């Protein structure tokens, strides 16, 4: 065990609250030291910070040892994203460390490295739409390498499945609460569809934390003050206002 190496590796606190899952993880370098996940019908405001507190206490790691605070930056539930983002911004402010904005859909695909073919995470975005993205893994030099084919976007479910049917790999892996909601439709349109089991089918802070480490190593950090979630969608009031202005022109 090379303990000296461990000390020089960055320690990242990962926060995930974009959907129903509330999760947090402590990642040192490429090692997940601790992960805490709940998928309950409780508000993240009541669970997230107690989870972080308990995890820190169990690991005996002091907040001052954290080198960066990572957050699952969206898309997702608007309120859920903001609970995670605001918590992360507050922590990063007080610890005077940078933040890492981990794209939520990327992180979900990142936790399924052993699938050959397209990986399509989906979050239910209501009105027959999903927040989704398209990814795959290749093997390079004996390691699985993550490829983003199409980063997060919002699309009508039928339109998305039609596109996958014509352009996608024969077998496609689906995960996330959107895949659950639209499972019948997916099976009907894509006979080659595979569904991830629940433990890897939802947002996991441990996997997201490792992706955060990759980003940290590439220098993809941001100042806490500048961080804001990526909603992928305007507020209803803005949409209606633009529609109205468009009609008036």
């Amino acid at each position, binding site marked *: 065990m090379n303990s000296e190496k461990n000390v020089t590796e960055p320690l990242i606190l990962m926060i995930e609250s974009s959907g129903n899952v509330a999760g947090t993880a402590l990642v040192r370098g490429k090692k997940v030291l601790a992960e805490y996940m709940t998928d309950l019908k409780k*508000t993240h*405001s*009541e*669970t*997230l*910070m*107690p989870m*972080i*507190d308990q995890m820190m206490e169990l690991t005996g790691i002091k*907040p001052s040892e954290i080198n960066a605070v990572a957050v699952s930056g969206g898309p997702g539930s*608007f*309120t859920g994203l*903001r*609970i*995670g*983002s*605001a*918590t*992360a*911004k*507050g*922590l*990063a*402010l*007080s*610890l005077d460390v940078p933040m890492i904005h981990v794209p939520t859909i990327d992180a979900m695909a990142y936790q399924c490295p052993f699938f050959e073919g397209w990986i399509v995470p989906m979050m239910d975005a209501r009105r027959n739409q999903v927040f989704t993205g398209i990814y795959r893994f290749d093997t390079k030099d004996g390691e699985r390498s993550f490829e983003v084919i199409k980063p997060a976007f919002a699309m009508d479910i039928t339109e998305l499945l039609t596109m996958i049917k014509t352009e996608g790999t024969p077998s496609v892996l689906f995960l996330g609460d959107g895949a659950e909601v639209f499972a019948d439709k997916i099976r009907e349109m894509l006979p080659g569809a595979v569904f991830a089991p629940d433990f890897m089918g939802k947002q996991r802070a441990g996997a997201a934390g490792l992706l955060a480490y990759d980003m940290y190593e590439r220098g993809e950090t941001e100042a*806490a*003050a500048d961080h*804001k*979630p990526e*909603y992928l969608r305007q*507020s*209803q*009031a*803005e949409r209606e*206002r633009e529609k109205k202005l468009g009609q008036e022109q």
Partner: protein
Amino acid sequence: MNTMNQDITILAIESSCDETAAAVVRNGREVLSNVIYSQIDLHTLYGGVVPEIASRKHIEKINQVVTGALTDAKLSLNEIDAVAVTYGPGLVGALLVGVSAAKGIAFGAGKPLVGVNHIEGHVAANYITNPDLEPPFLCLIVSGGHTHLVMVEDYATFRVLGRTRDDAAGEAFDKVARAIGLGYPGGPKIDRAAKEGNPDAIVFPKTKIEGAPYDFSFSGLKSAVLNYINHANMSGETFRKEDLAASFQKNVVEALVSRAMLAAEEFHMPGIALAGGVASNSALRAAMDQACKERGLKFYRPDPILCTDNAAMIGAAGYYEYLRCREEGHFSGWNLNAVPGLKLGER
């Protein structure tokens, strides 16, 4: 609650509606910094506060206002004793930004977290402007979201004597202002227009609630104003906006002042304090001042900057809540949630 020998410095955060604010307050009375980012221009486009837009703006600005408040106070987080934050009442999505950020800051800095009631903050704004003010006193809290007549028995003990049965007073100002084309926010616009108008030009009915002498109702008045406008439009009669604004305002002010005076007499209160956004209304201030003088009561009101939503008032209320928590041996937990319908005095 002896704190003579040790200063307590609170970092306070407020995000319950459309202002993102942070402040540093010492011993509940001395404002070391008070930073407010107002979103009002953004919401004016929509004729009122849009909750989702407010929440989005809060998260963009929260760190800037906190850093600004610490910088203005020339203090580091290490020199702060606790982080106080509004956790209700207010817009749930907006509150959650402040609450979550406050938890992150308090946890990271190893400081206690103190959840503060927004309305208690409005009351406490008076402690900042009036250093000699101490409970007990009567407080009339009037804003766009609240109309409460409250006996402040102690710093953290409140007795609600009366409240609005329908619209808040400030809400009535907004609706009437919109109806006569003055725009948003209605309070200051009506106040300004009324200065050019005759308050006796139109007589609107007074509302009294049977068996509840301290309660308010403004929806009847609002309807009467709207009916008056409709009737005038249909019959081709004209009226001066300024006269309507002044007459409406007079009705509201009389309802507020008469109940406050009745309560002050009944409960032998030595003084009356105003709080909330509508406390900036010039007619209300003048009428309250006059009525208090006639009865030998002391009249308190916060500086205008402390009437609208701000974090300094949360720092003032947070100080007294900090003392109470410290005495009881526990502060707010990390599971503190936003409580959009939080009642005055509720813990």
